C-alpha cells in the first residue's frame, strides 16, 4: 500500500490522477508529435513513396532525401523506446480494468513485437540504403521494398493488440475507457485486414500508397490515435491519487 508524504502529491493533484501516470500521459502525444514530424517531413515515408518506380527511381528517392532521411531516422533510433513507453502506458491503463491482466499482457506483447517490424526495420533499411549511395541499385531497391512493406504491412502484431484492447474495454466494469473506443479499435483491425492487399498490388487503390490500403487507413488511425490521447488523459484524471499501486 502506498504511503504518500505531502511532498509527493503534485500541485495538480486536485485534478486527480497520479503524477507519474500524468508524466507518461503527456509524453504520449509529445512522442507521437515528434514521430509525425520525422516520418512526414524528414524521412518521407508517410505519405509513402511510390511502389511502382524503377530501381533507378528508388535510388533517386534516396539521393533526393539523403540528408533528411539520415537526420530523421537517426533521431528515431534514439527515440524508438518512446513507442514502447506509449504502449506501456496503454497496458497500464488496461491493467486497471476489472478484467485482470491477461488482456493487458496481450497488448504489451503484441505491441512490443510489432515495434520491430513496424518501426525498426524501415529505419534500418532506409539508413542502410542511405549509408552507401553507390550501392548496386537492385539492392537499394530491395531495401526500399523491404522497408516500406514491413513499415506499412506489419499487420498481425497490431491487430492482436487492437483485438485484446477492444475485448478488454467491452468486458471492463471500471469504465477506464468508454465502450465506443472498443468499437473503433475494431475498425483498426479491418484496415489491417485490407492492408494485406499491399503485398499483392504494386499500384492502384490497394498498393502501399493506395487510396484504400493507405489513405483511408491513415485517416482511421489518426482518429483512433486522437481519441486515445484524449481518453488516456481522462483515464489518468479519473484515477484516484490514493489508489494502491498495481501489482
Amino acid at each position: 500500500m502506498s504511503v504518500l508524504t505531502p511532498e509527493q502529491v503534485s500541485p495538480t493533484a486536485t485534478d486527480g490522477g497520479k503524477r507519474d501516470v500524468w508524466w507518461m500521459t503527456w509524453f504520449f502525444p509529445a512522442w507521437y508529435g515528434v514521430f509525425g514530424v520525422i516520418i512526414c517531413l524528414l524521412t518521407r515515408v508517410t505519405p509513402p513513396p511510390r511502389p511502382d518506380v524503377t530501381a533507378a527511381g528508388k535510388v533517386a528517392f534516396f539521393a533526393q532525401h539523403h540528408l533528411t532521411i539520415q537526420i530523421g531516422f537517426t533521431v528515431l533510433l534514439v527515440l524508438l523506446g518512446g513507442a514502447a513507453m506509449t504502449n506501456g502506458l496503454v497496458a497500464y491503463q488496461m491493467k486497471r480494468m476489472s478484467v485482470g491482466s491477461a488482456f493487458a499482457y496481450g497488448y504489451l506483447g503484441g505491441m512490443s513485437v510489432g515495434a520491430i517490424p513496424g518501426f525498426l526495420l524501415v529505419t534500418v533499411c532506409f539508413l542502410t540504403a542511405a549509408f552507401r549511395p553507390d550501392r548496386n541499385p537492385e539492392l537499394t531497391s530491395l531495401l526500399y521494398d523491404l522497408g516500406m512493406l514491413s513499415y506499412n504491412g506489419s499487420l498481425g502484431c497490431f491487430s492482436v493488440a487492437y483485438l485484446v484492447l477492444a475485448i478488454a474495454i467491452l468486458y471492463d466494469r471500471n469504465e477506464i475507457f468508454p465502450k465506443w473506443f472498443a468499437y473503433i479499435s475494431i475498425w483498426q483491425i479491418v484496415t489491417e485486414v485490407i492492408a494485406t492487399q499491399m503485398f499483392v498490388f504494386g499500384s492502384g487503390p490497394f498498393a502501399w500508397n493506395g487510396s484504400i490500403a493507405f489513405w483511408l487507413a491513415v485517416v482511421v488511425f489518426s482518429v483512433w490515435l486522437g481519441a486515445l490521447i484524449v481518453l488516456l488523459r481522462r483515464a489518468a484524471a479519473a484515477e484516484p491519487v490514493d489508489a494502491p499501486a498495481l501489482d
Partner: protein
Amino acid sequence: MTQTDPATQLESTTLPGDINMWVMVLGDMVIFAGYFVIFMIYRSMNRQEFLHAQQHLNIAIGVTNTVILLTSSWVVALAVQAVRAGEFEKSTRLVLAGGVGGIAFMVLKGYEWASKIAAGHTNSETFYSFYYVITGVHLLHVLIGLIVLGVLVRELRNPAKRRPWMAETGATYWHMVDLLWVIIFALFYVMR
C-alpha cells in the same frame, strides 16, 4: 417517412440502443462510404472494363444473398419488438433465425468467390480486386455480426440480463451489415 408523421409525434424520441454502438455504426458507414466513392472513381476511369467484369457476376446469387440479408434483418427487427413486449422465448428464436440467415449468406458468398476464382476472375482485374476486398471486408462485418447476435442470444436466455437496449444495440449493428450490403449490391451487381 417525415417528421410530421403522426406515429413519430405520438412517441417521444429515443435513441435505439447504445450510443457507443452508434459511434461505431456511423463511423463504419463513413469508412464504407469512402470505399464506395473510391470504387466509383476507379470505375469512372475504366467504365467499359468494369461493365464487362460486372457481366460475369452471378446475379442470381447476388439477389438471393440480398434477400437473405434483408429477411435476416427483418427477423431481428421483429425480435426487438418481441423483447419490448416481454416475449423472450420468441425473440430468442427470432435472433437465432437471423443468425442462420447470416451463416447462409456467408456460405453462398464463399461459393460465389470459389466459382469466380475457378472461372479465372482473380484480383488481377481491377473490378474484381475491389469486389474481393469490399465483399471480404463486408464478410468480416457479417462475422462480427454473428458474434454480436450470439452474445445477444446468451443475454436473452439469462433472465437477469434481458434488457431491451441490449437487443436494440445488437440489432442496430446487424441492420448496418444489411444496409452496407444493399449498397454493395447496387454498385457492384446492378448499376451500368
